[in-house]
């Protein structure tokens, strides 16, 4: 990209080491940026970018992804959730869909929220990390406005983030034929960052979980206390609940996905999700229409680079193309000028001669 040239240091050999520094005679490379110097660099960069870009696009294309927005499909449930009074009324919703191609390999189930600002300053602020690490359940200082219940007991887990946890249940069932509906086996573990599960989130130590949380209240929007999130699996209960942990990593954008389940590749599903009829059975709890948001479920496979986004591949390709374009035009300019251009020096000479 740039051509560097070592300049000779005449006096340097004669002088002691620190003198070169003191006399500002340190050996140095002179960076020379001119058309000839950068051309080869431009071409190389362009070629590399084009190559990487094409690979990225191809691998993104190989991904199977399916997304179903269910706010409108389950409009009656959505309407019910508009009013907080109906919080204890259950509402379910089934969404059938057809998978035309097999989804090979690992399949991941995400839920996706539109227009939910998990990146609001006061929202992100409203949590207590020292509570979540299990050291101090009473530390609810930053959790306003969800720090204490009406009677003054500290909420655990406190704060707006925990309080607003995504509480829909999504069950995927495979309709082998019109009569046999089987639930696709899904894993609810292994969906969090390792450090979250084993470092950042810890249950307070006690004989059993419910006694550990005595003296705390459940978050107001929750239907059950934190120590009853998963009664079957103690490793997935309390603060260690995977769904809870995933939710607590607040997303960067108002539209975001969160990993919900991953496919347990057993029996029929050892290759992935076979093509066929499926349906999502959703217990609709999470209100989104109140803030004009939407919800969807996403099923996707993954490749080495990640999801099905074409953006990075396109970015690479465009950059490569633009770089080549720039290189060609620079070469053209250079060649054109090479004939016309006389050195500064010569220009002066001719001027002088004319005079």
């Amino acid at each position: 990209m740039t051509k560097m040239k070592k300049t000779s240091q005449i006096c340097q050999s004669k002088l002691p080491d620190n003198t070169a520094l003191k006399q500002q005679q340190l050996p140095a490379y002179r960076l020379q940026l001119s058309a000839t110097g950068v051309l080869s660099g431009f071409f190389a960069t362009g070629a590399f970018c084009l190559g990487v870009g094409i690979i990225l696009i191809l691998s993104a294309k190989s991904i199977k992804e399916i997304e179903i927005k269910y706010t409108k499909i389950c409009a009656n449930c959505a309407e019910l959730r508009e009013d907080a009074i109906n919080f204890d009324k259950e509402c379910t919703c089934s969404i059938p869909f057809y998978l035309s191609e097999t989804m090979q390999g690992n399949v991941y189930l995400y839920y996706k929220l539109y227009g939910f600002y998990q990146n609001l300053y006061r929202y992100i602020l409203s949590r207590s990390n020292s509570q979540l690490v299990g050291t101090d359940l009473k530390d609810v200082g930053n959790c306003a406005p969800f720090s204490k219940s009406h009677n003054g007991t500290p909420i655990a887990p406190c704060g707006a983030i925990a309080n607003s946890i995504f509480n829909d249940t999504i069950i995927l069932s495979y309709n082998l034929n019109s009569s046999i509906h089987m639930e696709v086996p899904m894993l609810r573990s292994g969906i969090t960052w390792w450090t979250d599960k084993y470092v950042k989130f810890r249950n307070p130590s006690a004989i059993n979980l419910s006694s550990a949380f005595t003296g705390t209240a459940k978050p107001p929007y929750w239907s059950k206390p934190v120590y009853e999130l998963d009664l079957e699996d103690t490793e997935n209960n309390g603060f260690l609940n995977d769904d809870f942990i995933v939710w607590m990593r607040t997303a960067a954008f108002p539209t975001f996905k969160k990993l919900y389940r991953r496919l347990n590749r057993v029996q029929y599903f050892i290759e992935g999700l076979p093509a066929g009829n499926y349906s999502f059975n959703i217990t609709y709890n999470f209100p989104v229409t109140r803030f004009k948001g939407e919800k969807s479920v996403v099923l996707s496979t993954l490749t080495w680079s990640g999801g099905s986004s074409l953006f990075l591949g396109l970015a690479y390709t465009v950059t490569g193309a633009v770089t080549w374009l720039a290189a060609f035009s620079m070469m053209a300019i250079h060649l054109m000028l090479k004939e016309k251009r006389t050195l500064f020096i010569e220009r002066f000479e001719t001027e002088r001669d004319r005079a």
Partner: protein
Amino acid sequence: MGCQHSLQGSDASKVRTIYLNEPIRNNFCKNSISTAKYSIWSFLPRYLCLQFSKAANAFFLFITILQQIPDVSPTGKYTTLLPLMIILTVSGIKEIVEDYKRHMADRLVNTKNTIVFRENEWKVIMWKEVKVGDIVKASNGQFLPADMVLISSSEPEATCYVATSNLDGETNLKIRQALLETAEMQTEQLSSLSGKIECEGPNRHFNTFIGTLYLNGKSPVAVGPDQVLLRGTQLKNTRWILGIVVYTGSETKFMQNSIQLPLKRSTVEKVTNVQILVLFLLLLAMSLVSCVGAILWKEGHGGDIWYIGTKGYSSHSLGFDILVFIILYHNLIPISLLVTLEIVKYIQALFINWDEDMHYEGNNVYAMARTSNLNEELGQVKYLFSDKTGTLTCNIMTLKKCTIAGIIYGNLSSRSDTILDNLSASPSAITESGGFNDPTLLQNFENGHPTRDYIKEFLTLLCVCHTVVPERDGGNTTYQASSPDEAALVKGIKKLGFVFTTRTPSSVTINAMGENFTFEILNILEFSSNRKRMSVIVRTPTGKLRLYCKGADTVIYERLSDDSLFVKETLTHLEYFAKEGLRTLCIAYTDLTEKQYQQWLMEYKKASTVIQDRRQSLEECYDHIEKEFLLLGATAIEDHLQARVPETITALLNANIKIWVLTGDKQETAINIAYSCKLLSAKMPCIRLNSNSLEATQQAVNQNCQDLGILLGEENDLALIIDGETLKYAFHPEVKRSFVNLALSCRAVLCCRLSPLQKAEIVDVVKKHVGAITLAIGDGANDVGMIQMAHVGVGISGNEGMQATNNSDFAIAQFSYLEKLLLVHGAWNYFRVTKCILYCFYKNVVLYVIELWFAFVNGFSGQIIFERWCIGLYNVIFTSLPPLTLGIFEQCCSEKSLLRCPQLYRISQAGKIFNTKVFWFQCINALVHSFILFWLPMKMLEHDMVLQGGYTTDYLFLGNFIYTYVVVTVCLKAGLDTLSWNKFNHLAIWGSIIIWLVFFAIYSFLWPTIPVAPEMTGQVSVVLVCPYFWLGFFIVPIVCLILNLLWTSIRNTCNGTLLEEVRKMERGRVQELHLPTAFEKSVKTEHLQLPLSSQLHKVVFQDESVDRSAPRGYAFSQLEQGVITQEELIRSYDATKIKTSKSL
């Protein structure tokens, strides 16, 4: 320090009384001095006060305070405090180091020893223990510890000599004389001494002192400046003196004069301050935009954001929001800029101090940057004001050539080159080797050449006709002269065998080729600048009466008798000497008859008793006898230029620096020097302005302006010569404008006979009129005004006078070092400082504007995208090194090229690299970069599925992506800006990236062991394994920088500047000393760009002030109108008498 109160009340009217031998009653200031800024106790409050008076620091203090308001700060409470503390600590350490040096210097002075008379015996004490009223004994060569009144001395008539060069820069010795009443006092009488001295309060005037000595039992006597010995002066040619201390410590006149330098700030600094203000406005604008955004967002989304809690969001007022956003964006103003610049400039100053090329081995003096504020100002100098004596010249004069009876001697062509080469090695060698050395003169004398008698008469005249005093010191005879010209002549002919040996009040003895002759001195017809000549009337050993005269060609030639020979030849020779820049004197004599002389003597006696205008009537009387001269020849004295002065001046002229010589010396002398240092050339027309009325001055100036016509305002190959008297009129408000225009149209300007105040005034006028950077260089106390007035003041150090050095911004030992100081250090420092500043702005805008872009997706809630400490440490750790290396090591091209091609200086001189346009360009560039740096990663991560295992990410994951890309981009941008990469640049650029990654790695594992940064937990282990991260790591900086790279390369290719070509040639040169010939040509042709005289020849100057005639080069300097006249001085001197040896 200890006597601040008395300093303030130091008006002259305040009388102090000093009681002799009663130490208890004398209660004044201590003699210890302190030039340090801080003491241990005052350091913290004073330092903090100083720091927070800077707008930027005060701003950050304000932000820190704001952050303490609960809930208002999105970046935590201490994230600004810590960097601010780091920065204050760093610059505090610098202050301490500098102040420690001052303390050490003070201690050195304060602990010097001196001898005082206490409790009836002589005691050795330290300077700081000296008190007012003490009687101090000082011996030859010692510096005096305080201001005192002379009581007695070892010399006859209780005189003593002091060197005052430390105070006023004058190199001649001053005579002080004790009062008659105390002259005989010695140790025995001291203890019985009683009485008091009343004198005026401390003041800063060197040449005044009003006091009265009341000795018990005697009538009071007045004490004046002739009895006062000042601190800082050195005792010379006197074995011992006794003095009563009257002023001590900071009340001495020396200390009263060492006022604090006016704080000079460089243009770059001023521009930077404005730019910081602009950034502040930008910050306010961004905060307002965000507030408006927040309101709009709430309108659009604010219906029911149930997840934030009902009272959570809309409760805060607009004012609160503004504070949040100001804190959010406050880092836009580069917190580290000031301290980075301080460090950079400090090291740049060290480079100047270390430079071996500016090390004068003669007296082992290195260049010294006394302030580091103005380093980059050195690269922008447009006008150079130089003193002459001691700056361009080395104050050494030698007889170089002479013409006797129409034959020129001493015309050996190779002489001066070899001398100049030796010059830097040992200055003393000049006087020995460089003198007059032409064997043909002696040969002609000895071999009976037809002109033998003339030669003899010529040399005899030089030996007799002068006011020099010989001092015999063992076997050697040294000459004391108030005129350096005369000393040069006497020394010069001494080598030829004509030795001036003895002076008695009435006679002069010389040794001519081994024979002694004694001439009776009858009269001395003194020199004055009006008369331009001096004569002596002597009775020769043969008893004849003869008048010897030496003086200017004009005055001698109009008094020549018709019989005089060699008139024409001598005149040609004079012109030749003048062209060489030598100072010429014509030598003539006339024989007098007894009668003539007696007649004149009567006249003389009458004239010397006239009360009114005695001087004038004496001069008229002298004129009557100085006639009918017979011409012998002329002498040519070289006023030695310092080494490489002509070369330096040529280089500086090529660098488009205008040189003005401002001197207190005479016009003739100044012109001579201007010729010899190639500032003037013989074919250059000179406009001489010498008038003594406002009208005449105005008329001459206007006429010249008219003659120049359209050339006015451009640079012409013209010289303007003006004297101080005329300048007074030229600076009259009516004339000033056209005069300055005229002066600015000339290539060289010589101003002569200026008072120190006028020097400063000229600098001030030019500074205001052209708005360009001015530099003043000088060595004496009379240059202090202009040194302080100019943007950059340079003092010539190493000579005895310290006044100029102490008031300067840079001190160098030789004028020629100015070339390297300006062309190399100045240009480099300008490039460095400006690049460093622009880069600091750039990197801050890049990172912190990203917060604004993020605000667009987070509903303008004030959420930060990065971890709070990463934001705070960005400036002080992760990107602190590249601006430092850029500011310390950057080289636009090599030192050799800069010296070889002074035209390169014009780049920095014109300030093309740093102005508002460049600043905005850089800001927009930074905005574009920050947008790319936010938008690309945002788009990359928008899809959320980037991790193996399908894990989803959070906002900080995006933040860490962006932060890493910012650090990489910003460091590489520093690399692109760096034109010269040495190992430190590599270390800084790659090191910074690595430091961030390492910090990132460690920082992600602190929680919960150390209770910081819970949100960073585990980030590194997901970020670094994410393929998207590394793909972005490559593409994002490339997308940002390829634009810059493209822009720079196309500009360099299409639009080859001189700098680019020089750099290209440097690159092409392999282990080669000589640049290609093409390069040399480019230098020459650039030089030809200067408008040459061809144009000018068309101009017809109508004013008679324009002088195109050849110069003759007369110059002679002699102290005039002193307290003691020259005649009195030599009449009182008797070398045959042995000095009365008084001892204690």
